[in-house]
């Protein structure tokens, strides 16, 4: 069969509470926005299929709780992520300052094999609001200082840049996937040790003998 291999990417969204993580995800997956704020407790999961360079990619998006008291999923959350999306609110300098912390937290918990080149994407959300407090330049500088992370200014409310941002997220995660080594070498030959190990010895339970 000539079908391309299936690809599934685990994408984690991190950032302070109320920066708009859930809203971004909802805008992206469901094309919907609500002004109502509800804290995410634990986690929420959404799935979206996208085409990236004519490959069908399934994005498994893990929306996390920004509020510390609702963060209860621990290491499992970060383990095996293909991409991490860091979100801040351009009207909240505090949420921007927290990015360092979120990034470190991710790198510690997920311990990716190549932390310097792990695909992060940074989103400055809520650019539709007037009371902006973090300039584009400041955000870009921070991204530059971290090995040039891609940066997008988004509005979940007005659907600005959301699609583009997620496309980059998928593409960058895929780029990591493609250089995976193949595991086709045979492992060591089994050694016959005269049946000394328990499960090989004769006369044990359920041996057809």
């Amino acid at each position: 069969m000539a079908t391309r291999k299936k690809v599934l990417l685990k994408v984690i969204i991190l950032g302070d509470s109320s920066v708009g993580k859930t809203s971004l995800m909802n805008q992206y997956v469901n094309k919907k926005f609500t002004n109502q704020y509800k804290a995410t407790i634990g986690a929420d999961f959404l799935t979206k299929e996208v085409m990236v360079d004519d490959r069908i990619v399934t994005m498994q998006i893990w929306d996390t709780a920004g509020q510390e008291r609702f963060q209860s999923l621990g290491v499992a959350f970060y383990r095996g992520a293909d991409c991490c999306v860091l979100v801040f609110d351009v009207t909240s300098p505090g949420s921007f300052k927290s990015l360092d912390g979120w990034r470190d937290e991710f790198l510690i918990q997920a311990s990716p094999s190549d932390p310097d080149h792990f695909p992060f994407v940074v989103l400055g959300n809520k650019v539709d609001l007037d009371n902006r407090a973090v300039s584009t330049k400041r955000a870009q500088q921070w991204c530059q200082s971290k090995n040039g992370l891609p940066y997008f200014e988004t509005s979940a409310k007005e659907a600005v840049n959301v699609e583009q941002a997620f496309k980059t997220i998928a593409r960058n995660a895929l780029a990591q996937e493609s250089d995976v080594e193949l595991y086709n070498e045979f492992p060591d030959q089994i050694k016959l040790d005269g049946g000394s190990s328990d499960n090989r010895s004769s006369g044990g339970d359920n041996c057809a003998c």
Partner: protein
Amino acid sequence: MEETQETDTTTLISDINDIAIQDPVVSKSVTENEPVPSSPEQGSSYEILFDQLKEKNKHIFVLSTAGKPIYTRFGNENQMASLFGLMIALVSVTQDSNDTLQSICCGQTRIVFLNKDPLILVGVSQSSEPYDQIKKQLIYVYNNIISTLTLTQLKKIFHNRTNFDLRRLMSGSERLIDKLITFTENDPGFLLDSISCLQMPSSSRDKITQTILTQCSKIKNLVFGLLIAQKHVISIVRMKKYSLHVSDIHLILNLINSTESFKTAESWTPICLPTFDSSGYMHAHISYLAEDCQACLVLLTIDHNLFFTLSDAKRKITEKMRCNDCLHAINEAIIRQPISLARANITGLRHLLYKNKNRSQHWCPPFTSPYNTDELQQNLMSVYCSLISQINFPGRTLKVIFQQLTAETMLAWATEDVELYMTFEPLVSKECATNAVTKLTQWMKKEEDSLFIFNIPMF
């Protein structure tokens, strides 16, 4: 009964229907509050998915500890990516409080979790199957994955890349898992931890075994030889000090019976036998004896350079068997009507399962009236399953169970050497049933030579 089985484990029994596949909207998130209102599109696609899932009685899911889908018995695992996320969340939350999530019950639905880092297996059954049974099915599925990859490889892969999408290495083996699950649902060998033997006179069997042994005993690093006819074993030979575990034989049987191409060419395939040694591959020479004899010979070695030696041995075995009439004896045994329970002539006895515990072999006579449909046979298997589970419950020494059900009367009888599960007509008395045990035991003494393999020689 089923509930008490779980008292000695740290099972989390929960009534929260939220987690069951009953409320599609809530179950995709672990939020306690209502989730942010999702759009009709997302909501309805989940509803369709969950409706489809609910139609099936039994689900098996495999995922990595990162929450990435690896296998689902039904449906497309990509579309269920959120559901897999939810599963890992449930496992992880319990793990964080230093506990292990083993099962969730909600009404008739039972969800069983098996954590085999770096894999997690989840079984969902809507037909009140015992916990142990579902767990054993999960172990079988896990073993099947190990048999294609080895545990060493599996651990290495996820150690190097926790985000690895294991489906990349599994393509092609999903079919084997599908078949294996069906096997675990239908085959008494799975319930009884035993194999079924092709019925034939013991003199013929001995001659076959001797022929295989003569060729095999001289080959260095050959560990096991098996001759198989469909679901039944004809003969086993083995290297001194090593024996084949029943669950490994089940994997071999499943591989052979699920792979049509073995019939057309001799094959050389690596296979890991998880109970024998999960760290590495055995190498199996698999071939059917001859065009005119559809028994499959499996020769297992640790040496991956042994193909031509084994190919040669197989050719000689077939030649010899043709000369000494063994091929003929096998063909006769394959086409012969399996021995009928009617021959035992026991009043009121409809069906039975007989397990020789020392040999881990069983006999299951063909179903006869009134068990004429798949559904009725399946129901009877569920009754057996429940009895087997009760007789073998760890720490309990239950020897006899007499059970009068609406459609049949059941008797389970366990001794040191034998487990016997008998199905009678509904109104059969206790006395009548116990008399039948004596009668059957005497009859079995005469027949067992042809029903079981007693001679498994070593070299």
